[in-house]
């Protein structure tokens, strides 16, 4: 015991809460599972395959990137799994898996690892990948299948396509809009993970209870969408349940790395996300605006975080 070298010296504090990045990511994965299960039910095995392809390719790309860049391996933090799942959630169920692999490469290699990996990217990898795929493969990325199409035997997939509820409104295809109940349980056209509102809300609740996310961003985002839809004469509940609002507000806009870290910042960020979403839906040629609005706001995060930065502790004399 007299050998000095045996004692470890390190700066305080000497204990930790035990929280770890991998634990947080595992919670996010758990929160995504209900929606993943719903996607499997609604859109069948192709949805499941797509999720597996995205998760698998994201993890592989992360693994390879770290090796190529000679950095410490990070697949253990499970963030690549989360990115893969979220990317799959943003794709149409019958998308060719090759496109999904391309999307994974964009998300992990270009958006995440080229900027230094977890915590350093300025845009949400899954959203950026979705936007890139949309611009590159607009037809494939907007071919939506009807819920339970896989149970209808004998007919070709073409016969089973439909439009998203927002698309129906925008393009006036004359198709009947799904009922609010259908929208709540997810039996409608859309990206495979965005349709089941019930499952997404359940996941969101789990994240809030586990204190993984604060409810500020989802509440402000969803509230703003509802309010402005109503102002522009749309049905607010329909607006919230349609498109990717719930998926975006609960899982994408709350991404730690690409959303503000302060309470104040979160409020501003989420309200603007909601506002831009409604503006795009109402005035732009696109039916849906969640991805674009979150991506745009991601870029503004450093700016938003400057707010309140110079607020120092009060100096000087008495303040009783």
């Amino acid at each position, binding site marked *: 015991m007299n050998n000095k070298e045996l*004692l470890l010296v390190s700066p305080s504090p000497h204990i930790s809460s035990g929280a770890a990045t991998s634990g947080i990511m595992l919670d996010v994965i758990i929160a995504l599972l209900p929606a993943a299960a719903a996607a499997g039910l609604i859109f069948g095995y192709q949805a499941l395959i797509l999720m597996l392809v995205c998760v698998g390719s994201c993890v592989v790309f992360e693994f390879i990137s770290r090796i190529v860049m000679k950095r410490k391996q990070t697949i253990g933090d499970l963030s690549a799994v989360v990115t893969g799942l979220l990317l799959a959630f943003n794709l149409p169920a019958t998308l060719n898996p090759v496109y999904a692999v391309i999307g994974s490469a964009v998300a992990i290699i270009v958006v995440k690892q080229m900027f230094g990996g977890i915590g350093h990217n300025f845009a949400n990898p899954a959203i950026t990948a979705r936007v890139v795929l949309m611009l590159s493969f607009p037809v494939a990325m907007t071919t939506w299948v009807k819920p339970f199409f896989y149970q209808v035997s004998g007919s070709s997939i073409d016969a089973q396509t439909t439009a998203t509820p927002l698309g129906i409104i925008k393009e006036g295809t004359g198709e009947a809009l799904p009922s609010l109940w259908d929208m709540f349980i997810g039996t409608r056209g859309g990206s495979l993970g965005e349709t089941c509102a019930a499952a997404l809300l359940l996941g969101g609740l789990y994240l809030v209870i586990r204190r993984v996310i604060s409810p500020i961003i989802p509440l402000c985002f969803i509230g703003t969408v509802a309010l402005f839809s109503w102002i522009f004469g749309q049905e607010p509940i329909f607006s919230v349940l349609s498109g990717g609002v719930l998926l975006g507000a609960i899982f994408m806009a709350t991404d730690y790395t690409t959303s503000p870290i302060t309470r104040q910042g979160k409020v501003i960020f989420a309200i603007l996300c909601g506002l831009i979403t409604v503006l795009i839906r109402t005035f732009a040629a696109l039916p849906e605006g969640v991805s674009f609005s979150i991506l745009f706001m991601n870029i503004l995060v450093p700016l938003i975080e400057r707010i309140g930065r110079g607020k120092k502790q009060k100096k000087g004399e008495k303040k009783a």
Partner: protein
Amino acid sequence: MENISLELKPARTFGGAKVPHRKHAKNAATIVMPPPKTVEISMQQHIGAPCTPLVKVGDTVKAYQKIGESEAFVSAPIHASISGTVKKIGSLLLPNGQKIPSVIIESDGELLTLEGIAPPQVTNAEELAAAARASGLVGLGGAGFPAHVKLIPGDKKIDTLVINGAECEPYITADYREMIEHTDDILNGIFKIKDILKISCVKICIEDNKPEAINILEQRIKSDSRSKGDVFIVKLKSRYPQGAEKVLVQAATGRLIPAGGLPAHVGCILMNVTSVAFLARYLRSGLPLVSKRLTFAGSAAANPCNVEVRVGTSIKDIAEFCGGFKGEPKKILLGGPMMGTAIYDVNYPITKKDNAILVFNKRDAKARPITSCIRCGRCLKVCPMKLRPCQIEQAAELQNAEALDMLDAAACMECGSCAYVCPAGRKLVQSIKLGKQILREGK
């Protein structure tokens, strides 16, 4: 008076982390360790100017004899904790890299007390402060701020005496044992200070994980004829860092100490329970501070306990007296796990301000891997100073003084809450300390 509760609800404070209690030594009554064969008394036992040794090699010294003194205002004299011969004026390497003279005394085994010690005469504020200085008292809760400095508020009007019995660091039970074992000394000290400084209100702050201490103090206050309904107990929620100066004063009084300010700026004097109790004992006996109660605990402690030791006793001697180690200790801390200092050598001597020796086995000593900040915001949420620790860390790494100033890095009290909750294991406190240094050098 009988059935009126003296308990007050604390005012709201910000942030804080839920740390484990692990007060394993809670019910271990204090045992007194016999004086060791040698002591090494550091000339830096406090915050402020170090002392100069007043003795030289070969001198015989008696216990309680003054052996270190400084002219500086913010300093406190140091006394011999045993009687014997000065073997060496050593040079002690502090964990922060600084070298400080030390007086090494070899015991004569007699513990001869200096003759002519008498209780001081204290009738006014100046005499109280002078007595506090002469007693060598420093903040015994771990901060080590010379007590007499607090008792001279200068031109500030003081109306509240805040007594710190929070003991919010895990493991440590030294103050808790003081409250249980020396309740009367605490009250004597409180009433003495209150009378002499004409303070109108006393608030004793205790975390709610110490109900026994709250009870016993409440009983004694109720039955004390000196109490006129102006001594209260503030039952704090157990949340780290409740015992930090700013947090405690805010919880007790609702007043916010300004940046760089002292409790006196908001009309308060803040003293630790053990410090007030010692002051009362000193006023009664005139015996200066030469011993200290410590908690010996941690995963490598065979027998967690509270032990009163002579200042300058080595960690090794104390550990042996306390029943030794369980397995091999890999990390030894002076102080709590949140703010304590890791010690490089078991022969390191303890000082007045130390309140715990924590020893940890290999498993607990293992450093956790550091990964990238994921911007989860947990560090912001727990910071009692409402800072942005993760951004301060970045600014410190970039040596960006302007950003550090904007982010108010100087206000950090180094409580460690941020690093405690960080899922990426970032060494935030270390980086912020670096940032503060950059700011100081820039000025």
